[in-house]
């Protein structure tokens, strides 16, 4: 589901945020979120993801710029009036209340009648498939159950927007996958707008309609997962999202939609030219390991390089090879594992190739 071209629901325009007056934690943030969209904020630690959520929730005020939610300027609305549901990384379930009381809390502070509260709480508990835990304390639930309760509590008052700050960070891998699915299911079912913070890129790619990649308080790229992965805007995105064979070099020529990058004396590769790539400037190759082939028969319109295999790692569904190519080691190739086919041997010299369209030459990022 790509963002429909309707009115934006959440609008950040030119938001700056600084805590100490010197360094920007968010700098000139501008982005829009459509109604019903699932947007992930992805980025390394300290890149300003939580801060962005806090600005939206109202626990931090922007140093400049405006935030709109459903056309309403949020800057002066106190946090408890914003009607934004929030799920915290460590759940923040109130330990002195039962699960049912926790879920009823947002309803009771809104002055809803008790009978109605009870009904809604029961429905929420059904929704998270934990109908029998209402009387328990949060501490008597498992991590995954607590997470579901936190989710139910953030959704029960039908907020227009739900913010989640690394909600699955504390769970183990299997549970995390189950919960990812659960969250997606709820998102589809309720049609609520979600902004989801994570630093797990596969989580971001699998769950989101769009992903915003944060880096030092800026958005490097905001795009659909497919676009982000296959068409990264710059070297940071290419290297941060998924694995990348980021050979660096200097652009020697631009030929139509393609750029030529010299990665070692006498060795040049050709790929789609990214924005801001110009002859004479440094640039980076964006090439996914699974796009590389050992096929001996020459591909049309392809780059051909030779290298040697340093290491082979068995990963079950695929082989992962570490190569030295054009004088750079750490070049990664993934090939699917077919039981009957023997993989290449370590130490073998190999010829690798990939088409011009399977790679991109991107600018070296900022600074």
């Amino acid at each position, binding site marked *: 589901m790509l963002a429909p071209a309707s009115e934006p629901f959440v609008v950040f325009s030119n938001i700056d945020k600084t805590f100490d007056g010197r360094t920007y934690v968010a700098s000139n943030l501008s982005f829009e979120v459509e109604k019903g969209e699932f947007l992930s904020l992805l980025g390394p630690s300290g890149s300003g993801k939580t801060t962005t959520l806090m600005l939206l929730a109202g*626990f931090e005020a922007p140093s400049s710029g405006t935030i709109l939610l459903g056309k309403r300027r949020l800057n002066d609305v106190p946090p408890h009036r914003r009607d934004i549901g929030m799920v915290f990384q460590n759940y*923040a379930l109130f*330990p002195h209340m039962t699960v049912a009381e926790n879920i009823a*809390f947002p309803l009771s*502070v809104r002055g809803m009648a008790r009978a109605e509260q009870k009904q809604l709480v029961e429905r929420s508990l059904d929704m998270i498939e934990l109908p029998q835990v209402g009387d328990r304390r949060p501490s008597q639930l498992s991590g995954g159950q607590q997470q579901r309760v936190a989710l139910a509590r953030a959704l029960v008052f039908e907020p227009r927007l739900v913010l989640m700050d690394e909600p699955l960070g504390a769970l183990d891998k299997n549970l995390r996958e189950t919960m990812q699915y659960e969250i997606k299911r709820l998102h589809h079912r309720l049609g609520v707008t979600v902004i989801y913070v994570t630093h797990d890129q596969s989580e971001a790619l699998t769950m989101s309609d769009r992903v915003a990649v944060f880096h030092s308080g800026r958005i490097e790229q905001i795009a659909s997962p497919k676009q982000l992965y296959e068409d990264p805007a710059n070297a940071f995105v290419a290297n941060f999202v998924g694995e990348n064979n980021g050979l660096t070099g200097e652009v020697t020529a631009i030929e139509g939609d393609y750029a030529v990058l010299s990665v070692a004396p006498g060795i040049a590769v050709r790929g789609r030219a990214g924005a801001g790539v110009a002859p004479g400037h440094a640039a980076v190759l964006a090439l996914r390991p699974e796009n590389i082939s050992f096929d001996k028969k020459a591909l049309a319109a392809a780059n051909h390089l030779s290298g040697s295999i340093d290491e082979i790692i068995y990963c079950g569904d695929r082989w992962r090879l570490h190569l030295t190519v054009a004088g750079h080691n750490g070049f990664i190739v993934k090939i699917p594992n077919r039981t009957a086919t023997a993989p290449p041997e370590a130490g073998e010299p190999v010829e690798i190739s990939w088409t011009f369209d399977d790679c991109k030459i991107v600018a070296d990022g900022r600074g």
Partner: protein
Amino acid sequence: MERISLGRAKNRVDDLQAGYRATRRREAWRAFLLVVPLLVFLAATFIYPIGKLLLLSVRSDEVADAIPRTAAALADWVGPPTLPSPQTFDLLAADLRRASDQGAVAVAGRRLNNYEAGFRTLLLKTARQLPATSDRPYSEVLPEIDKRWGEPETWRLLKRAASRDTPDFLLRAIDREMTSDGSVVPVQRSQSVYLDAFARTFSISACVTLISLVLGYPVAYLLATLPARQSNLLMIFVIVPFWTSLLVRTTAWYVLLQPNGVVNSLLIKLGLTGAPVALMFNRTGVLIGMTHVLLPFMILSNYAVMRGVSPLYQRAAVSLGAHPVVAFVRVYVPQTLPGIGAGTFLVFVLALGYYITPALLGGASDEMISQLIALQMDQQLNWGLAGALSVYLVLFTLAAYFAFNRFVGIDRLRLG
């Protein structure tokens, strides 16, 4: 087959339980050995003396020890309106003679004075004037020395005082006494002081606790939420009073609260009052002084709990639509209940036994029960009554403990 495997399973469960119990026993022993030194220390310095004092409230050996044969004879006497048998008079004379050789008369006299003023003088005078021998019966001689020996009431008191187990002090400590026919009645209005003193002790302690809570809770909150550097600095201000002697602090208030002291001058300068306000030798002085001394306990108990309450919960509550004040009351305060409970309990119990501060800063109508206990012990020398008052104070404290345990739960108490 089935049965055999069932039996085996049962054996395994039994083995498991036996092993578990053995481990538990070993742990219990280890724990016990670790606390033995403390237990010995406590037994010698605390439990034994306190037990002794409490026992004094129902024991009265001085008179029975001084005049043992008279005491035995009086036990069979039916009481007023008749006088005891002439033999009892003889026995008393003999006992007194022997006792005055051993100096026991004064001790017994002091005890008797607890029953009626002047009894000590009577006993000493009688022992002094007792002829070495007499050919007349002592039932005539003694009333000649003092006519009170001819009154049954004197003998009744002697009989009460000579009995080794006595409810008198326990009754006296709640302004009751036992009449000659064995019924319990309130003492005369003019002598009834202890129930009032208990009520006063309770209300002063409750006031001090409440004031400490109102003053201390916000400070503890501030301490728990400020950045570490400022919080540590503030903490010093809270703890410094702990390093200063109680007497010094109380004396300092003594100076500050005087009619022409610092506080009054300030009030007058600020135009809040025209003439000096009485801040001392009244309830105000007691409350100010005691609150000042006990406030750190309240602050520290709350702080210890608050430090463990994440501010995230309040954020979560606000994000769910609660006004910050509502979030504080419904989400933060309940999580600090163990701290409130601990602080309240600690301050209240400490206040119950307070002594120096009310003695120095209070007036005649602010006497707390500890002051009365001290008065009985070192001025009236009535250890029985002191013990009886202590019994009630201990019971009072235990009641506070159980109430606290019931409402807050002692297991939720954290002090560090």
